[in-house]
């Protein structure tokens, strides 16, 4: 209850404009700094040292006390500086299957000196630490277990540091609005796509595909390296593309209605597994979902399209 209240107060105080346009530079007014628990204990220590110095009239005791107190003050500036002027950019976030670890990548740069022990964390997660060396791009990857299918939001990131003495916690918030697409968890028990889903129509009519070699034609941008006639290129005949005919009989429809499962997520898991199966068999396949149909094809781009469709199908927000 109290924690929730504190959280919402902190959300209100530190509300950021989202999403921000990269790169984000941690300028002075973005950085907050407060003593840590260690810092408070240190302050208490210094206080006791001061009282002892006064009581015993120890001049060197005063020297020690004031040296430590001043050092803490200087350390505050160092901690703040350790974070100041860092430049952050969002990195690519690859889609994952539910149950896997999604990685939100952020790259961090320092304008001048090496920054030690810079940490990045999502709310409630363990931080990831990095040393940011000048003229190097440090890519910090925050691993999160993707539990739910759909779009995983990175949310607001806290970048913080306690270096060098741990007396102060300097932090800043950035929100790039990063997301990771989470595909359904493939259901390994789903078996192969059912045979009856093969389309019986249009049998025997050749369709451009890549099953049987048909002819060589001029290269068009977008042709995959697999299709390029490397031998012809070696004979200096120019960049040519091999064209195949797909056999219509090998076409496969992965259909929503075929996947029998009690609930939506299990159904999607089954479909997801079938998509992966079909792709690994090298079959041409299409995906049929209520209200959406992806025509049969094959290849990485097609698989991604299908998986995206599954991930976003009535996606939980």
């Amino acid at each position, binding site marked *: 209850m109290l924690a929730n209240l504190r959280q919402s107060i902190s959300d209100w105080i530190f509300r950021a404009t989202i999403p921000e346009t990269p790169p984000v530079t941690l300028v002075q007014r973005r950085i907050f700094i407060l003593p840590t628990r260690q810092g408070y204990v240190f302050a208490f220590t210094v206080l006791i040292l001061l009282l002892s110095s006064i009581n015993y009239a120890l001049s060197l005791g005063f020297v020690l006390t004031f040296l430590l107190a001043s050092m803490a003050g200087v350390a505050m500036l160092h901690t703040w500086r350790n974070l100041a002027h860092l430049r952050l950019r969002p990195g690519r976030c690859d889609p994952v299957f539910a149950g896997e670890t999604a990685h939100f990548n952020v790259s961090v740069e320092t*304008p001048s000196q090496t920054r030690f022990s810079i940490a990045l964390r999502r709310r409630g997660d363990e931080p990831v630490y990095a040393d940011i060396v000048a003229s190097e791009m440090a890519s910090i990857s925050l691993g999160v277990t993707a539990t739910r299918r759909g779009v995983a939001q990175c949310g607001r990131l806290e970048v913080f540091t306690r270096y*060098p003495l741990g007396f102060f916690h300097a932090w800043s918030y950035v929100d790039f609005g990063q997301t990771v697409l989470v595909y359904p968890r493939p259901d390994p028990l789903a078996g192969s796509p059912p045979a009856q889903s093969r389309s019986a129509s249009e049998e025997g009519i050749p369709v451009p595909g890549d099953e049987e070699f048909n002819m060589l034609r001029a290269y068009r941008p977008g042709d995959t390296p697999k299709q390029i006639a490397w031998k012809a290129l070696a004979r200096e005949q120019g960049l040519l593309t091999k064209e195949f005919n797909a056999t219509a009989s090998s076409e496969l429809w992965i259909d929503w209605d075929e996947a029998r499962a009690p609930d939506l997520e299990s159904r999607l898991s089954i479909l997801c597994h079938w998509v992966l199966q079909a792709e690994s068999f090298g079959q041409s396949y299409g995906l049929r979902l209520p209200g959406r149909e992806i025509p049969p094809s094959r290849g990485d781009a097609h698989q991604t399209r299908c998986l995206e469709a599954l991930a976003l199908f009535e996606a939980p927000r």
Partner: protein
Amino acid sequence: MKLKLFSGSPPPLSTPLDVRNVMWLLAAMVFVVGPHLMRLPVWIGIFVVVVVGWRAWISWAALRSPPRWLMWAVTIASTYGTFLTYGRIFGREAGVTLLILMAALKLLEMRDQRDVVLSIYLGFFLVMTNFLFSQTIPLGLYMLACVWIFVATLVGFNRVGRSPTLRERLRPAGALLVQALPLMVAFFLLFPRTTGPLWALPQDSRSGQTGLSESMTPGNIANLIKSEAVAFRVQFTNGMPPYRSLYWRGPVLVDFDGATWSMAAFSAQGQRNYSRYERPSMYTVTLEPHNKTWMFALDVPATYPEGTQLLSDLQLRHRRPITERMRYEMMSFLNYRYGENTNPPQINRALRFDDTRNPRLVALGRQWAKENPDPRMLLQRAAQFFGTGFTYTLEPPPLDRTNPYDDFVFNSRQGFCEHFAGAFTLLMRAAGVPSRVVTGYQGGEVNPLNNELIVRQADAHAWSEIWVKEEGWVRIDPTAAVSPMRVENGVNAALGPIGVIPSLIDADRLGLLANMRFAWQMLNSQWDAWVVGYNMDRQRSFFSQLGFPNIDWRTLGFWLMIATFAVGAAVAIGLLVNDRPPKREASLVAWNRFCAKLAASGLARAPHEGPLDYLARVKAARPQLAAEVEEITRRYVQARYGEGASREDLRALARLVAGFRAT
């Protein structure tokens, strides 16, 4: 640009602490308790070494920490051991011992970061405890090194991931400490000092405070004489008086029980009834703390500082025991006569003795008085008596307990100032001459570099005063009869080549060694005056010298705040200047400004557009600007992609951009 990847989670808190970090902490602990171990009982040293070794082994071999019951057992055992050693667990030595033992045990049960931090804070306390025993320059520097190691350890523990190198630990820690120095000095000078402790000090809170005591039994001062510790320092403002008149008056001992001379339990505050006062001498005394109330001045004090009182026997007393270094200004008359009309009770007191003890000496005195009661005659006889057959030595044989002065005068005939002063005073009383023993210091050593007189415990002395009608109290130094050198040239001269105190070799008084010694002493004297002895009085006089008389804590606090902000700002600016992007980017700043100006006029640079393409486009669109735009672009390209640019080039570019109008 290199790319480095960081991913995954940090090690959870339960993993063992980094071995190297732990070793650093252990080393720092050993360093800081080192000076203590040399003065505390041996078992404590062994305990610390064993515990630290055990902890090192635990870390090294990744063993488990000792079980809880064992920790409790050791804790109780060590507390009990402390109690057995000292008979208590409070007080300076016992308290420090207990703190050391607990710090060692804390190392042993250290499990996570929080324990480490506590151990380091304990380490800072241990640094402080060292100052209870000594505040010399070498110890100060040593402790500074210890603090550095502790801070470096703390830095090491705050580095997550790769264990830092030696340089990566020491450098940031050193930088923090160096940058903290100015503020530390400001605080040290400005922090309001108080007088007196906040709470009662344990009796043994001070060390090395040897000094004179309230009583004198033959054999007492010998320990003092062997001590080289500084009693006080004197700076004369109108020239140093001759050596033989440097009698620094301390406790006056009137009561005598046959063996021990002691101070009068109650002495009246004095009226200064000087009938002759000539040859004033002005000087400043820097007195080391000795936990007693008396202060030292040359015979006879003319003025006395605030907060002190002058008793009728010319003892200078402070209101409270002197527990910190104190400076006071004095004026004395070296040529004087006082006390002709001392009241009868005081005279009677100075005649009292127990005639059942030291019968032979008493009989001798009475016999002399019968033959000629004139004090002058008696003095002459006494001088002759002590001048023949007596030897001055710091190591006299032990004396009979009941009749020590008989034993001394008629048997051993070897002794030093207090034997002679005691025996002479008793002799005078037996002869009917009011007399008393005065203790204090005589002479001192002049530091030729700053003309300061250093009076050491070795210069402790005892002499007599006799009361003569119409003359008042007259100082008689019977030691002078035995060993005139003692009074003329100091204790080393008196002892001659055989009895020389080893480290005070006078042989190369003007040699290199002596010069170094004097330079070192001068440094120590400055250190003592400005650092160790910086108290409320010193603070006041420092600020009144700067032109702020009557400074109070509000003013000090105000300046303290100013200093804090000033130093903080200086450090922050220093850090930010260090943080500036490299020079090369100054051209980029100018270029971006230039592009922004053009963009505002509707000619924005596309993100993919290089400077030269952009130049071509701008020239086509705004032919009237061609020359200016070309110049800016040329300079920018040269600075950023060419061979670089000097500071002047960059400034010229910035000027061009500043003067550029896009329309």
